[in-house]
């Protein structure tokens, strides 16, 4: 699947939107507009955007706590995400969830999950529904390199394989789980080999290339839709920022960072667009438009109200008593 200029342009705008969102999130946090940590994916944008490009409308995604990129790529508005970050009533989760749990039933975004690997079994369930009902919908579930050492990863991989579920296991291998390098956490060189333990195909892909990601995802999706079951994809990527606010990244070298940044997916995409005939003025216009939209969304979110404390019961089951 090689991307058309139209697709490249969309991917470019989408990656810009994601990065712009993340940078604003970082600033909002630094300026104490919200608390409770947030996990950003600056540098990893191509994985989310390429994944969405490789799929169809109606396909589901189940992200992690580092999930803003997927929420945006699946069509959730930056306003609803800003508002959620800030704990506002207009947020995607009405302020109940926060940064780590953004989701949308309408748009097929299973809420992000703050427990490492916990969304993998859940994604097996959404895929199971599609299979049971004979729908050709695919679920892609996202997790990090470190998550492949967590119990739930194993059980979900095996269930999906043995039940031929239409699910794609998308591992964002950014080389670190928090501050721990992946080489201290596993003894294998490539995580994709883990797929073989379940009788599942495993493939490694350059996560800095939106086209390459779209490619393997669309192949995996075709496999899933034709009843052949799950695929494990290991996308090699890098988060430019810390794991969380305050993380100074002193567990890695500035050289390593520079090397990854030199392969920045947004810049690479821009180069492709220029090669395809776009002018620098045109790409600058896209950038400006994205910036303007984000600024508006951010300002509106900041101006929107917090939830009324009397509505604390929203989303509580009938039998939950909330009087003190």
């Amino acid at each position: 699947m090689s991307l058309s200029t139209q697709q490249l342009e969309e991917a470019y705008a989408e990656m810009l939107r994601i990065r712009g969102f993340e940078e604003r999130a970082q600033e909002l946090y630094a300026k104490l507009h919200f608390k409770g940590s947030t996990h950003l994916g600056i540098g990893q944008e191509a994985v989310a955007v390429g994944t969405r490009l490789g799929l169809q409308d109606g396909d589901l995604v189940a992200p992690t706590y580092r999930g803003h990129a997927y929420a945006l790529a699946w069509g959730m508005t930056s306003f609803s995400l800003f508002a959620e970050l800030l704990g506002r009533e207009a947020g995607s989760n009405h302020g109940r969830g926060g940064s780590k749990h953004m989701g949308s039933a309408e748009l097929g975004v299973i809420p992000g999950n703050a427990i490492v690997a916990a969304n993998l079994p859940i994604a097996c369930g959404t895929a199971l529904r599609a299979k049971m009902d004979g729908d050709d919908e695919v679920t892609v579930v996202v997790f990090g390199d470190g998550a492949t050492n967590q119990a739930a990863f194993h059980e979900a991989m095996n269930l999906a394989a043995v039940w031929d579920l239409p699910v794609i296991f998308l591992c964002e291998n950014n080389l670190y789980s928090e501050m721990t390098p992946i080489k201290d956490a596993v003894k294998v060189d490539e995580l994709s080999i883990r797929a073989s333990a379940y009788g599942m195909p495993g493939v490694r892909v350059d996560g800095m290339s939106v086209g390459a990601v779209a490619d393997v995802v669309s192949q995996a999706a075709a496999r899933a839709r034709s009843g052949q079951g799950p695929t494990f994809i290991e996308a090699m990527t890098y988060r430019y920022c810390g794991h969380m606010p305050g993380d100074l990244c002193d567990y890695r070298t500035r050289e390593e960072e520079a090397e990854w940044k030199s392969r920045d997916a947004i810049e690479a995409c821009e180069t492709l667009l220029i090669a395809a005939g776009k002018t620098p003025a045109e790409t600058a216009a896209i950038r400006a438009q994205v910036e303007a939209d984000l600024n508006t969304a951010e300002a509106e979110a900041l101006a929107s109200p917090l939830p009324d404390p009397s509505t604390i019961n929203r989303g509580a089951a009938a039998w939950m008593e909330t009087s003190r």
Partner: protein
Amino acid sequence: MSARELPYREAIREAIQIEMQRDPDVFIMGEDIGSYGGIYKVTKGLYEEFGPERVMDTPISEAGFVGAAIGAAMVGKRPIVELMFMDFSLVAADQILNQAGKQRFMSGDDFRVPMTIRTQQGAGGGVGAQHGQSLEALFMHIPGFAIALPSTAADAKGLMATAIRMDDPTMFIEHKTLYAEKDPVPEGEYLIPFGKAAIRTEGSDITLISYSASMLPTLKAAELLKTNHGINAEVIDLRTIVPVDWATLTASVMKTGHGIVIHEAHRRGGVGAEIAAELTQRTWGTLAAPIARIGGLDIPIPFSPSLEAVWHIQPEDIVNTALRTLKK
């Protein structure tokens, strides 16, 4: 509604069967529940009727398939999950407590989890420390699940049907020593609401509150109190511990002035603590004695029959506590 005698296990099966016939979104999964019919034979025959797609055998992956049930429920299914022994709920504790019970709230009411976890618990018969625990207090403490622990076949049927139809996660806790117990069970669709306790014996002297298999020694104790001591105990079966039927409990204790909560689970931090603490608040002024609690001893369940008998609640323990409470 006409009723015939049915053992507890068959009453549960009948409820599942009827709900599966009614609603194509209901399905069940668990270990060896398919053609084998489950270790305790609760699902026997369902595989033949509904096929492997709706009666699914799973690998030994409790966290995996509870999670899969959550996911399926979030997008419109109504899964029932069997956990073979309640002790195994602990390998799936994250999915149960951190995931199923929180999705609706964390999503701002965008997703619901209409899943029923069925499991069985209970010591007795040498099942030992890792196959006999009663863990309901854990699932009561963390908001999320409505929880039923039926003691009779009819209740099992009616509460199971209600659980399956509920839009939030429910935990349905069976007791291994009750499976063969027979009772008259209404035919056809039969629903019992959560949060409605049953008064099994009326009485005016003391209120005995219990649920699940502990109802047996409790009812036996009430008989002994009557026969041997002329004491009229009111016996209440909670049926569900989330929600609790405070109205029925309060009215009874206000009438009798005395109460005991009895359960097989460890006493410390058990459901009895919640009931006693809350009921004391609600009935203060009419209470003639503190509400007592009886539970399993505060050690792992011993295997040997001579020790297991001590660990377990005997009717005499209840009688003695009642006499002490009534200062007789």
